[in-house]
């Protein structure tokens, strides 16, 4: 892993390596170099399998983290390539031509996080949701419980008691 990281570092301005396991590492790459890094990893380093592409919402930092997880099966190694995006108007270049499956991931990210991938096929078609009318649901600022309570009705008649408060009221009412 370290060897690979040193090599990458000599070629691209990549960040430090987070070595999660001996065969799994994470590295942050500037947005504009992502494509080059991915193609390099795929064609020169044997990371031919795009395991997944997903996003993490760091709401407090105002950033989206995109994780491209690549796998080199023969070496038994995985490398997660992280890209940090500004959360406002998040846009990222599409890699559907590097891995055709990426188009599906990008479609999902567009729908669930609201990240735009210009040029990705069928990006704006509905994928999972239908008739969604709120902010993209996987964003941290979307409150699923609140949405559920506002849109769907619960069966009435549920009520609960806090044991501590209930005991205090039962045992110590009257101040003694």
């Amino acid at each position, binding site marked *: 892993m370290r060897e690979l990281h040193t090599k990458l570092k000599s070629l691209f301005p990549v960040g430090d390596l987070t070595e999660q396991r001996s065969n*799994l590492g994470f590295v942050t790459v500037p947005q504009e170099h992502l494509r080059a890094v991915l193609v390099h990893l795929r064609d020169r380093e044997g990371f031919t399998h795009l395991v*997944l592409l*997903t996003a993490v919402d760091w709401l407090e930092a105002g950033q989206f983290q995109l994780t491209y997880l690549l796998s080199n099966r023969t070496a038994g190694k995985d490398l997660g390539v992280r890209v940090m995006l500004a959360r406002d108007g998040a846009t990222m270049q599409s890699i559907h031509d590097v891995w055709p499956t990426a188009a599906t991931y990008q479609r999902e990210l567009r729908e669930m996080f609201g990240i735009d991938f210009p040029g990705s096929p069928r990006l704006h078609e509905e994928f999972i949701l239908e008739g969604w009318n709120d902010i993209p649901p996987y964003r941290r600022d979307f409150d699923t419980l609140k949405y559920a309570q506002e849109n769907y009705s619960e069966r009435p008649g549920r009520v609960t008691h806090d044991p501590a408060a209930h005991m205090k009221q039962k045992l110590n009412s009257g101040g003694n």
Partner: protein
Amino acid sequence: MTQNAPFFTPDRSQYPAKKADGTLDIDIASGKYLKLWQGPNHPGITGNMSVELTVCGDEVVEGKTHVGYLHRGFEKLMERRTFIQCFPIVCRICVPEPDFNEYCYAAAVEELAGIKSPERADWIRALILEMGRINSYMMYLGGQAGALGLGVIGQWTTYARDLMLDRFEELTGARIYHMFIMPGGVRDGLPEGFDKRMEETLREVESTLKDVYDVMFCNAVFKKRTVGVGYIDPALVDSYGITGPNARAAGVAKDVRKDQPYLIYSQLDFEPVLGQDSDIFTRADVRRRDVLVSVDLVRQILAKMPRTGPLMATVPNVLHWKIPRGETYIRGECSRGEYGYYLVTDGSGYPRRVNVRGPSYTHAVSLLERMIVNLNISDVASLMVSLHTYPPEIER
């Protein structure tokens, strides 16, 4: 070769032309094309997904996969559940083989929390995963035959699967959603007399497989309908993220159990099952032989596993368990390919983000949409089943 019927030459004069951006120029009003929906009303065993087919005559010119019918927003729900509260919910992501969710989630949490599950628990986990694999394949075999009108196979395999569910019930306390592998270990050890009953069940599975082989794989009709149909080019394996039996049937020996052995798989003796022809028949055959491997693995596990020792590692109080910031990816080889959990924690008592990588994600969408073109309508169901996709793991 995508069609094996030499006497049928499709009339492609009416085929749609391609537009500049590569998409097909289909004018539905021209009357040349018909939209046909396969699903979501459970087309075979593929679950609630649907393929929107555009057909020209008998041939599919375009297929679009539609998913989301089973979307519950697991990844969102998990963000507002504590680490232990996520444990019961994950298995719901995949009904026919729920245990991989439990294992991957538990292993991811353990890794980030710096916990090591006890060895005995690892063996039991592997046992459960192999039992689940047998079940999943048994369901597949029934579905694959059923998609071609061979209903009897499903009658048999469902029975064998149900016997295995009985074993699951006595081991884990539930038939379908076992909720047995929890972060830290497993709930309990094997019940008394389990080995004996398991051996009986395995024998039943083997005898069922023998019958299935005779009636399904040595069947002129089945062969005619599947040999040479639904070919996956081995070159596509990496670019389309194909894993599991779909890749192995194409001669690519992808098997996480061998590539990156997890749990106790390095102590077991087995070889990944490979095929060459990469058509529906080969994929079915790879899965059939894979069941036999799993049957053997279950026997090996029962013979080698330690019978005493702790089953749970010491975990912090689960009510306020916090895990330091980190991210990891845990994978396992499920019956459909590589199943994985990407877990990100931020030091709080809740996961920051969970992403579930189901093998069907790539198989059912990008791969299926590519393979379905030029297929005869009657083969669509068979092809869909042969990719062995479970939609809940696509949309979660």
